[in-house]
């Protein structure tokens, strides 16, 4: 039965029409709101490609049923951080270090890193590795991703 759900996404109040309140947030963002930042990687919370911020915290949107979200929770996606013209400092660091190959995982890398830097402005190398330990990259871009996060933190 179609129903409406109110969400706060990238600073705007939006309403999506859904059939199933147990649908994960990922599909509302991608299919209802046409956002491309959060990506489908596994649907199991194992890879991190779907990561978004919910009230500043990095969350796996594939594991977050809409029924658990309220319209007052602030959801931010990769698009909400910045644009090619005005990238977020972490996005800019990824551009400056050319930290992408296919780029499919990069959404998760950036969302996780922004959340890390919000609570730990000068993380150690080990802190960064730990924070990104559950974000998978198949291209092997890890060396550059580490360099990008350090650059964003001003420690490289």
């Amino acid at each position, binding site marked *: 039965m179609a129903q409406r759900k109110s969400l706060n996404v990238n600073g705007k109040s939006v309403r999506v029409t859904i059939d199933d309140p147990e649908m994960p947030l990922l599909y509302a963002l991608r299919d209802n709101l046409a956002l491309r930042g959060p990506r489908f990687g596994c649907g199991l919370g194992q890879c991190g490609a779907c990561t978004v911020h919910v009230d500043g915290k990095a969350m796996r949107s594939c594991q977050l049923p809409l029924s658990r979200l309220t319209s007052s929770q602030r959801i931010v996606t*990769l698009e909400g951080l910045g644009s090619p013209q005005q990238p977020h400092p972490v996005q800019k660091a990824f551009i400056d270090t050319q930290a992408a190959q296919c780029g499919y995982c990069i959404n998760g890398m950036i969302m996780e890193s922004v959340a890390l830097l919000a609570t730990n402005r000068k993380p150690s190398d080990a802190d960064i590795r730990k924070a990104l330990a559950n974000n998978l990259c198949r291209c092997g871009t890890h*060396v550059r991703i580490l360099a990008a996060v350090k650059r964003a933190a001003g420690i490289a």
Partner: protein
Amino acid sequence: MNINVSRRDLLKGSGALVVSFSLVPAGDALAQGAAPAKPVALTELDSFLAIDARGQVMVYSGKVDLGTGITTALRQIVAEELDVPFSRIALLQGDSRLTPDQGKTWGSLTIQVGGMQLRNAAATARGALLEEAAKRLSAKKEDLKVADGVISAGTRRVTYGQLIGGKGFALKLDHAKPAQPKDPKDHTVVGKSIPRIDIPSKVTGRFAYIQDIRVPGMLHGRVVRPPAIGATLQSVDESSVKGVAGLVKVVRQGNFLGVVAQSEWGAITAAQKLKATWSTWQGLPEQAKLYEHVRATKVVQDQVTGNVGDTAAALSGDGVRKLAATYDFAIHTHGSMGPSCAIAELKDGKLTSWSASQATHDLRKQLAEMLGMSADDVYCVYLEGSGCYGRNGHEDAAADAALLAKAVGKPVRVQWSRADEHGWDPKGPPTLIDLRAAIDAGGNVTAWESDFFIPQQTAGSFMVPLTGATLAGLPQKGDIAPGNVFQNSAIPYKFANVKTVCRRLESTPFRPSWIRTPGRMQNTYANECFMDELAAAAKVDPIEFRLKYLDPTDRRGIEVLTRLKALAKWETRPSPQAGSGAGGNIARGRGVSYVKYELVRTYVGIVADVEVDRASGAIRVTRITMTHDCGQIINPDGVRNQVEGNIIQTLSRTLIEELKFDRSMVTSLDWASYPILTFPDVPEVVIELINQPNTPPWGAGEPSAAVVPSAISNAVFDATGVRLRSIPYTPDKVKAALAGGA
């Protein structure tokens, strides 16, 4: 938001600039099946590039960007050769109507072959434009100057746009006898680390992957694969999905089963809920006896890849020391981060397929055969997907989408699940290698023999069967296509007696295909580990040992190893290191490896530094040092990015990865059961790129991966005195080897 995937939109979105529409023949009409005006033959200049009245250049590339950044590098080649600004070049890739068939995007050949075809096209175009300008400006061709697409003779000038704008060149190309390119000393664009054009949009969520594309009227499909690879579909209970909102259809054709729904979540829900009954099937070998199965598989061809002297006589000679070893290399999945995805629309007897296929021209033939259509009625469009590292599931998803679109008469998008990708992408086949050698009393290698047990490859055809067609029982060629996995079975070392044989097997347990560095990785692994065994037996430093047997005229191979010694601060001594068999809990060592890719191109040398935890059996790679010569470098940072990726990905394959299966099916269907390397285990990586601007550019997407497994194996031996011969090097295997002391 719907995205209307017309050529016009694609062109607009494909680069930093908006290309003149006049370059695009018939625009939207193409998507409706109008005949293209543009040639695609490799022998026509107009197949490769066009220049509009404003001097904007459109490049048509049959080679596609699989996330490697080559669309930036290919633009650099054209900008350089044509003397136009990089920013004025757009590139369209992998379109079966508009781009030339330059072959699959594989084998580290995009720059080496595809790029050189483009260079030839650009050089030919520039020559023709100069000829024309000389006439217009009443000047001698050699007195003309070219800059930024403007040709001048003193104060008189004419632009490329004025000379050719919107018209074709109508010139032939002969790639065997290419036009004279620029002298590399004049290069200003080639050889520069121009930032990749796709990265800003990728890191801000603006880039559209195939997974993001929506076409008008599109429905969402999911496939429901059998629980056993060869199972037969006995019955489907459609009432099990009756309550799913927006369900359009349950599609059943033979053993092909799928669902189509209005929404993606509806399709996922239906696929999860659909009850079907399948027969049992247990046609896979026991995993624990995999290599016994490989060894027992019928050999259909003995392919001799190296034959010098008489190895049998040398091995049975008096006074020689004989060594023998067997190596094996596990079955791997491609493991793309984004599961395969495709869209298809069948309308008025014509099929349009959008996918991330690395070979849209080939896919077109396969889809046509499957659906009993003329290839002329099938149109395949490439859109970038998640990195694939070879032939993964993209083409299969395209077949699934075509079958579902045909069944419902509307465009259907198929997104594979993680389990679909891990379970059903074609696999890198298991590889078993026997090696034998003889060393004389003076420590000289007198014989080298090897047998590589690898699947056969259908002659002259590399069409990996489409799973959808197989399940549906539809017609298709029965190719077995692991790729050119014989490569690098022969060795670069000059021993007096050599015989290397690929024992081509009739079959292999899983549908094979190529995965990054196919065959070259496995074969180099065995060869370079065994080379290390011989060096240790001869008590010679492993780099000195390799240099002793390299062709002394092969200057570049020698340079790669010589520079590697300096870069890695290599201590000249034999392996294993003194005290390797005893001491503390952590054993440290270093290992070297070397490859001349396919014995004709890119040279790579590597040193791995490792720590082995004797108690846990865990191997920690602390540092990788690499020297790399791929000839003329187009974009140094692009090459570096690829090389880094090869190193990290192959560390993962070496230390961790192994497909798990029971007698019916793959059981490693997610990232928990098929883990890959993560950030805490990423080593320091030091790379020295050796540029050779006056030589042809060679591939860089694969070669550096070939040397990684052997370098790690050799480093573990150096640290512990124990030789590991079975990939992956899991802690359990390492502990067992240490306990055995072998």
